[in-house]
């Protein structure tokens, strides 16, 4: 019995022991091990994180060391753009190093062990940077010259074979851009295709075909096509491509974007969608939307590279151009089937590309699986939905960029994007993403501007449905210019038999403009369409051309980008003009139009003046380029420093020279002319040492030099006194000159000696200085027209009168006096210049007209003055 009880106790004890052991293990040992494991995991996590960050830090240093010689090398060879590029890459590496230091010293938990981060991205970063380096800064040959622009750098060309240059427009071009309404254009990008540089004709044609429309929309500033080259000019947007920005956004972690980074990413895509919406409203599609073509500057994304921009209604065959992963495979299929561009909706292909861009921003990778690509990173479900909707099949994706933008705006506006459900998105909630309101009311004017520009553009509208809705092209204008919310027209049939109807809603407009409230068939529709177009365009012109009091005017959303901002203003004027082209029953009178034209001219003048004032006030930093180029700043400071050093050297040199006694100019002349070189200290000392003993002493030398100077000065003073005396005599003669006209005839004709020419010129100048008017063919006296004819005739008659009579004879004197008496109005005296015995000294003969009653005082004065002027000596020919 006892043994049985003992056994029972033993069994119970064992059972209790087992239970206790289990309990112990479950509630004590397991938690204990868990705690130990947790502590170890923390420790190892910390150590791993430290190692990883340290390795990453070392890797960044290694990369930086590689970049430094590249930066220096490009600086040495003068490739400034390339040096700036490598400098930026270096800056990124420095940023990575800073992040590593931050994580290392603030104990960020690490996820990796080993040395893998040492080469993390190294094999990709360096080739990417080297590959993306710009080419030469200056274009070669005449193909690289662009009138009105100064090339200041270059950019990496894409796959289109074009060369890209950064340039600054000259003041004239800038003024032109301002006048055209592009605003203040600081720097521009010139994309040039030159056959000499390897571009092909198809490339040139492809690039050039949509640029007129792009220019109207303000995306292109200028373009030109010549037999040898084609180029177009856009604004230069400095910054990084979205691909690089995406890498930076993902630098902080591998799990995906969150918080601020996610908000930034969505902002960039929203900017992109707003820009694309403007393209589509303007009748274009970009066709090459990808991260490399999106530049982020000042936290705003700008779409660049218009290489593949195509009119939506182009009659050309659809091509497969684009970039893999961002190009809709459906587009390729359609292109391979030979579809025409106008048969497809190109805007949807852009929407697909935006979806791919959004995917790449979220995933930091390409959508390799197309629409089926999986989003593995942390991402709001609503945003995931937007990506999938954008990359869905052609018929199921967002029909417009604005539809996608509305959904994206909803996610951006949510306080917690991760809590927003796809069901809350406007496109899902409303069931129609085609007509959503734009998220920012500011964007409305820009879109309206684009619509209005589209309305005035020859490029037909984007949506093929518009064509189907309207029978004439005018109707398409309505479709483009009218508000996007489509409403069914209210028609009232007026004549069942003939099929006449009336458009209830548009009746008043139609009758006001055309008096055609009721008409039949297509003509009525066209009339209504024209009226609606006129109304819409006038509305747009009112809004942009002449803001109403209290209205905000052409406000442009920041999302639309600066290009759009600048695009909004210019088009207002052009649009205004186009609006007037529509028949207007209330046409103004010619006087009113003239008054209005003057007013516009004054307003334009005021605008130009204010622009110039503003430009002067803004100074050099008004080109929209923010920040300071470190290289340029260094160069400026270096230049200033060199200038200061040079100036200091000059001043110091002059001070030092000033300390030593230096002879002045005149004294040197006097000394050189009067004192032997051997006696002047400091001259030829090396060759001829001065014999001090041979000199009488320093005082003698000084006295001798002073005496010489005094003699020279006395001579010069006497000469000057003579000159002054003669001048005063001449002045008194000139003062007493009665004036008059002197007929000069010369027989000394070219070629003449220099001396003879000088004498004749001197005489003529003196005569004119004494107040005589000279008539005749003298050097330096040129007359034309009737005066020349008169003088020629006068001289000819005088020569005829003299005939062969010798000049010094009495007969000659008598003939001259008779001629002067007969031609009193022709002149008061005759001077005849004849060759002298010495050909260098011509002989002057002169005669003065006498009054019939005899010589008068005036005659005597003329004779005296003329004699002085001719410097005739005693016994000259009277």
């Amino acid at each position, binding site marked *: 019995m006892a043994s049985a009880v003992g056994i029972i106790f033993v069994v119970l004890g064992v059972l209790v022991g087992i239970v206790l052991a289990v309990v112990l293990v479950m509630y004590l040992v397991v938690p204990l091990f868990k705690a130990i494991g947790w502590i170890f995991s923390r420790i190892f996590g910390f150590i791993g994180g430290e190692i990883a960050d340290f390795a990453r830090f070392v890797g960044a240093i290694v990369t930086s060391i590689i970049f430094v010689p590249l930066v220096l090398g490009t600086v040495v060879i003068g490739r400034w753009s390339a040096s700036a590029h490598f400098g930026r890459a270096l800056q990124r590496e420095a940023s990575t190093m800073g992040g590593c230091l931050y994580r290392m010293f603030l104990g960020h938990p690490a996820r990796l062990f080993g040395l893998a981060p040492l080469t993390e991205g190294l094999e990709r970063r360096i080739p990417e940077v080297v590959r993306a380096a710009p080419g030469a800064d200056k274009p070669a040959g005449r193909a690289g010259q662009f009138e009105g622009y100064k090339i200041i750098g270059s950019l990496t060309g894409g796959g289109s074979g074009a060369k890209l240059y950064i340039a600054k427009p000259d003041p004239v071009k800038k003024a032109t851009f301002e006048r055209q309404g592009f605003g203040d254009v600081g720097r521009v990008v010139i994309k040039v295709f030159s056959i000499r540089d390897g571009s092909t004709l198809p490339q040139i044609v492809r690039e050039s075909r949509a640029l007129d429309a792009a220019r109207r929309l303000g995306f292109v500033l200028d373009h030109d096509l010549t037999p040898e080259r084609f180029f177009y000019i856009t604004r230069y947007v400095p910054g990084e491509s979205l691909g690089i920005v995406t890498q930076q956004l993902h630098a902080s972690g591998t799990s995906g974007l969150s918080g601020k980074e996610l908000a930034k990413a969505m902002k960039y895509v929203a900017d992109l969608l707003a820009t694309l919406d403007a393209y589509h409203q303007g009748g274009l599609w970009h066709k090459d939307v990808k991260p490399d073509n999106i530049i982020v500057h000042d936290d705003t994304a700008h779409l660049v590279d218009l290489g593949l921009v195509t009119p939506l209604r182009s009659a050309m065959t659809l091509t497969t151009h684009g970039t893999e992963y961002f190009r809709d495979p459906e587009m390729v299929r359609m292109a*391979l089937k030979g579809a025409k561009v106008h048969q497809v909706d190109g805007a949807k292909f852009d929407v697909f590309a935006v979806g791919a861009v959004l995917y790449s921003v979220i995933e930091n990778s390409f959508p390799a699986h197309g629409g089926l690509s999986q989003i593995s990173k942390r991402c709001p*479900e609503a945003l995931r939905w937007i990506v*999938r909707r954008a990359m*869905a099949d052609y018929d199921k994706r967002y029909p417009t960029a604005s539809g996608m933008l509305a959904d994206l705006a909803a996610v951006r506006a949510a306080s917690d994007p991760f809590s927003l*459900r796809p*069901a809350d998105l406007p496109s899902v909630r409303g069931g129609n993403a085609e007509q959503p309101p734009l998220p920012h009311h500011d964007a409305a004017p820009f879109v309206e501007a684009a619509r209005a520009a589209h309305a005035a553009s020859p490029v037909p509208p984007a949506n093929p449905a518009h064509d189907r809705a309207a029978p004439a092209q005018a109707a398409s204008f309505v479709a483009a210019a009218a508000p996007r919310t489509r409403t069914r027209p209210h028609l009232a049939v007026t004549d069942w038999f003939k099929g006449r109807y009336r458009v209830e809603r548009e009746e008043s407009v139609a009758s006001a403009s055309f008096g055609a409230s009721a008409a039949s068939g297509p003509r009525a529709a066209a009339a209504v369409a024209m009226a609606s177009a006129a109304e819409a365009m006038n509305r747009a012109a009112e809004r942009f051309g002449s803001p109403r009091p209290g209205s905000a005017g052409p406000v442009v959303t920041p999302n639309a980008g600066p290009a759009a901002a600048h695009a909004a203003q210019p088009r207002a004027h052009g649009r205004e003009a186009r609006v007037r082209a529509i028949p207007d029953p209330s046409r103004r009178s010619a006087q009113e139009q003239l008054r209005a034209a003057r007013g516009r001219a004054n307003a334009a003048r005021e605008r130009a003046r204010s622009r110039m004032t503003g430009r002067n006030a803004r100074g050099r930093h008004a080109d929209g380029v923010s920040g300071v180029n470190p290289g340029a700043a260094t160069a400026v400071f270096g230049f200033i420093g060199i200038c200061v050093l040079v100036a200091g050297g000059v001043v110091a040199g002059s001070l030092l020279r000033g300390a030593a006694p230096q002879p002045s100019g005149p004294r040197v002349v006097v000394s050189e002319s009067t004192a032997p070189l051997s006696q002047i200290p400091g001259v030829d000392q090396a060759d001829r040492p001065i014999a001090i003993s041979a000199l009488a002493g320093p005082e003698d030398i000084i006295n001798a030099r002073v005496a010489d100077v005094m003699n020279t000065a006395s001579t010069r003073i006497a000469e000057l006194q003579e000159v002054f005396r003669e001048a005063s005599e001449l002045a008194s003669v000139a003062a007493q000159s009665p004036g008059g006209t002197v007929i000069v005839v010369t027989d000394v004709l070219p070629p003449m000696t220099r001396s003879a020419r000088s004498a004749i010129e001197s005489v003529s100048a003196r005569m004119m200085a004494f107040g005589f008017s000279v008539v005749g063919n003298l050097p330096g006296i040129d007359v034309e027209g009737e005066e020349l004819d008169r003088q020629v005739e006068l001289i000819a008659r005088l020569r005829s009168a003299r005939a062969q009579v010798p000049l010094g004879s009495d007969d000659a004197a008598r003939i001259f006096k008779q001629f002067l008496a007969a031609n009193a109005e022709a002149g008061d005296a005759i001077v005849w210049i004849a060759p002298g015995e010495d050909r260098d000294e011509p002989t002057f003969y002169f005669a003065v007209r006498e009054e019939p009653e005899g010589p008068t005082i005036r005659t005597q004065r003329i004779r005296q003055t003329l004699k002085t002027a001719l410097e005739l000596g005693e016994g000259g020919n009277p």
Partner: protein
Amino acid sequence: MLSSLTTGFVSRLRANDQAAWFELWQTFGPVIRAQLSKWGKGRIGSQTVQDLSQETLAALSDSIDRFDPTRGARFSTWLLAIAKHVLGDEMDRRNAQKRGGNRRPVELDERWMAGRVEGVDEAYEAAVFRAKVEAAIRMVEKESDFTDFAIYRMRVLDGASGKDVAASLGLSEPTISRRLAKVRDLLRRRVAQVIATYSFTEEEVAEAERNGLELNPTKADDALFDESVAEIYHRQMELRQRDEEAARMGG
């Protein structure tokens, strides 16, 4: 025995239908590139692989006229033989360049028509099969309603629960189940169609069932079907991801 779908597709290829060739490229391009990379063993870069895979399809278009379906070759073998020929041609060309001679490229080994091609392994066959399923998924995505396919994607491919999907889209769970079943049925039909199109032998047609894709299922097979599709989809995703990375590295 070839199905009418297969002969129709082959006819399109023979007629040089660019869309058919693009479809082939889209569907099997990654598989060919992966196989070429595997054979190249680092001797050829990713860019060359890209070029060679295009050349493979070009060579395929040349040989399509000599295609004899009665000799029992598999579709996958057909692709592989061409790829191998193109790779061998490339390697010979390189060797010839190294030696400085002008060795002529090899003639296409047409033994594949009898199904005798070395290097055909299970991994390759599985990759080809996955590519076919992926093509079927794409077709379904194209044909079905966007929301329906989104439900299928969230529920099956992303692995979300029916309750979460319903909450996310603001629909009831029965609605989710109903629309899910609709897409699943369509996918079954499309898988059958794609496999019939890209299969030359009965053995290839039977691959679907061997891989858990019962094409004539009972109700209980739905879960297995979904699971198999999800697995195939994710493996194919991985393949494409690697293909894309290789392309990026190669520039």
